[in-house]
C-alpha cells in the first residue's frame, strides 16, 4: 500500500495559545520569550513582519518591542502543554493512525484516500482543530514524512493554499526541492548542511539526486535515509507503538513519606539522571519533561500533582534535564505534605538528530562526549558512580517570568474571565 503522510503543524503555536483567551491579540504583533525571559522563541506573523528575529535575546529587542507596541509573554508551559494535549486528542479521535512528533506537530496516515478525498479530509481536520481547541494548523501531505514536512512549510507560509498543501506530483516535487535550502530539510542539521554545501550541494533537489552510497559515507545512515525519503521511499513509518514507547518514565514510591524539599530534590535528580540514561540508550531526545508528585497517606487522600516543561531544542543532556526538573519542583511542592512518590516522564521523544529546524534558542552545546563518558563510567562501576552535584542548580530556582499570562486551563484561580455587564 502506498504511503501518504500528513504533517499537522500548529501555526505559531505559543502565540496561538496566548491568543485563544485574548482575542484582542489577533492581528497584533506578539512575542513569547524562553525560560528566564531569555530570548524570543515565538513570534506572530505581525512580529515577524516587524523584522524581529527568532532566537534574539530579549534585552536586545526590548526597546524596539516597546516602541512598536509588541505584546510580550513569558513562556506559559502549563498552558501550552494543556492545549497541545487537546490538539493531539482531537487529532487522535479523527485519525487513530497518528504519531505525536512534538509539542505542536503530529503525523497522520492518509493512506487509502485519493487526492480529492485527502484535500477534503485535511480541510476537515483543520476546521475541527480550529473549532474544538481554537488553534490554527497547517497541513502538509507527502508520500514520506520528509516530503510532508516540506509541504507543511509551504502550507504554512503561503496563504493561497488555505493551510493545506500536497506534495505528491513528481514534477512539482522537483521544482519545489530546487527552491528548498538543503539546511531546511528535516534530518539535515546545521553541520550536515555545512558539509553538503562545501561539496556543492546547496538545494534539496541536488541532495535528492545525489548518490546514496556517497551520502551515507558523508552523513551516515541518517543522511542516506533523507535521500531515500526525498525520493519518495518511506523509511520512517508512523510510530504505532503502544503509549509506553512514546514516553520514558522513571518513578518510585518512597519507603517512607518525604516532607523536605531538599530530599525531594535529591530524589528527582536521581530519577532524571536514570531516565536520561534510558533516553540516550535508545538514541532519543525529549521535547518535554513532566514532573509529578503524589502525596497523601491513604488511598482516600492520595493526591497527584504534575507539571510539564517544554524543552527546545530537544535534548538528552542530563544537566539540562535536571535544570528543567528543578525549575518545576518548587511549584509542585507544598510544605507540610507527606510525599509518597515522585516521578519523571519524558514525552515528545524524537530520534537524536531529528530536531525541529527552527532555532528556538542559541544552540546549547550538548556535550555528547561528556554524556558518553558519563554513561560508560556508570555502566562499568555502577549506576551512581558519577552524579550531578546540586550546587550549580541553586540559582535556577527562581525563574524570571515577568510577563507570564494566566494558567487559563490548569489553575482554578487563573481561569479566563468572561464579562457579563
Amino acid at each position, binding site marked *: 500500500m502506498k504511503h501518504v503522510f500528513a504533517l499537522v503543524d500548529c501555526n505559531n503555536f505559543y502565540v496561538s495559545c496566548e491568543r485563544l483567551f485574548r*482575542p*484582542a491579540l489577533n492581528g497584533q504583533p506578539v512575542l513569547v520569550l524562553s525560560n528566564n525571559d531569555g530570548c524570543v522563541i515565538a513570534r506572530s506573523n505581525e512580529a515577524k513582519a516587524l523584522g524581529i528575529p527568532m532566537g534574539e535575546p530579549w534585552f536586545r529587542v526590548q526597546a524596539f518591542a516597546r516602541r512598536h507596541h509588541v505584546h510580550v509573554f513569558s513562556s506559559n508551559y502549563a498552558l501550552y502543554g494543556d492545549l497541545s494535549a*487537546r490538539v493531539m486528542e482531537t487529532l487522535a479521535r479523527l485519525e487513530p493512525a497518528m504519531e505525536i512528533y512534538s509539542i505542536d506537530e503530529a503525523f497522520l496516515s492518509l493512506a487509502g484516500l485519493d487526492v480529492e478525498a485527502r484535500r477534503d479530509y485535511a480541510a476537515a481536520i483543520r476546521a475541527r482543530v480550529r473549532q474544538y481547541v481554537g488553534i490554527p494548523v497547517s497541513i502538509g501531505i507527502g508520500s514520506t514524512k520528509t516530503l510532508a514536512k516540506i509541504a507543511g512549510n509551504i502550507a504554512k507560509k503561503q496563504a493561497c493554499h488555505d493551510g493545506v498543501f500536497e506534495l505528491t506530483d513528481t514534477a512539482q516535487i522537483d521544482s519545489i526541492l530546487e527552491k528548498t535550502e538543503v539546511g531546511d530539510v528535516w534530518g539535515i542539521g546545521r553541520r550536515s548542511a555545512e558539509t553538503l554545501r562545501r561539496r556543492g550541494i546547496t538545494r534539496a533537489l541536488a541532495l535528492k539526486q545525489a548518490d546514496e552510497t556517497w551520502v551515507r559515507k558523508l552523513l551516515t545512515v541518517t543522511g542516506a535515509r533523507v535521500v531515500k525519503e526525498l525520493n519518495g521511499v518511506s523509511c520512517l513509518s508512523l510510530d504505532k507503538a503502544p503509549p509506553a514507547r512514546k514516553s520514558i518514565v522513571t518513578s518510585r514510591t518512597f519507603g517512607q513519606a518525604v516532607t523536605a524539599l531538599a530530599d525531594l530534590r535529591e530524589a528527582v535528580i536521581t530519577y532524571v539522571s536514570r531516565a536520561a540514561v534510558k533516553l540516550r540508550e535508545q538514541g532519543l531526545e525529549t521535547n518535554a519533561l513532566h514532573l509529578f508528585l503524589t502525596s497523601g497517606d491513604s488511598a482516600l487522600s*492520595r493526591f*497527584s500533582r*504534575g507539571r510539564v516543561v517544554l524543552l527546545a531544542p530537544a535534548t538528552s543532556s542530563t544537566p539540562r534535564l535536571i535544570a528543567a526538573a528543578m525549575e518545576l519542583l518548587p511549584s509542585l511542592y507544598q510544605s507540610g505534605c507527606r510525599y509518597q512518590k515522585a516521578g519523571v516522564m519524558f514525552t515528545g521523544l524524537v530520534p537524536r538528530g531529528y530536531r525541529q529546524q527552527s532555532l528556538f534558542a542559541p544552540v546549547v552545546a550538548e556535550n555528547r562526549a561528556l554524556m558518553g563518558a558519563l554513561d560508560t563510567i556508570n555502566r562499568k562501576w555502577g549506576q551512581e558512580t558519577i552524579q550531578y552535584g546540586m550546587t550549580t542548580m541553586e540559582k535556577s530556582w527562581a525563574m524570571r517570568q515577568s510577563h507570564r499570562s494566566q494558567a487559563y*486551563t490548569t489553575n482554578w484561580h487563573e481561569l479566563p474571565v*468572561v*464579562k457579563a455587564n
Partner: protein
Amino acid sequence: MKNDSSIAGLYSLDQTTQRLCPFFSSGISAGFPSPAEDHIDQKLDLNELLIRNPAATFFVRVAGESMIGCGIHHGDILVVDRSLQAAHGRIVVAILHGELTVKRLMCRADSWCLEAANPAYPAVVITEENGCEVWGVVTSVIHQFPGVL
C-alpha cells in the same frame, strides 16, 4: 422528617478521582445509562456528568451581573464546550470587541444577535464587520455558595 421538595436527590461524591481538571487524556462516555441497558452501578463522577468532550471543554469565570436572569452570577464558573453547535436560545461565550463575554444567542428575523438576560442591556447584532463570533457554548454553570468550602 422534613419534606423538602426542592431537593431532588442526594448523591455521595466520589472524592478519589485523580484527574486534574480540566486536563483530560482519555475519552469519557456521555449520557445517562438507560434502565434497559446492562450497566454496573459505579461511583458518581462530576466529570462524566458535566463534560462530554474534554478536549473542547473549558472553564471560565464570570464577572458581572447582566446574566442573573439566566441564573448566572458574578463569580460563577461556566462549563464551555467549543464543539457544540451554537443555536438559537443557547447561552454562549462570545467575542465582543476583542473580549470574551457571556450572552444568549438569538436569531431575530434574518440575523443573529447576542442578548444579555437583562433588557436594560442592548442586544448586539453579529456582523462580519464588528468581528463578533461565538467562542463556545455554555453547558452548565457552577455556583458555589460563599464561605462554605
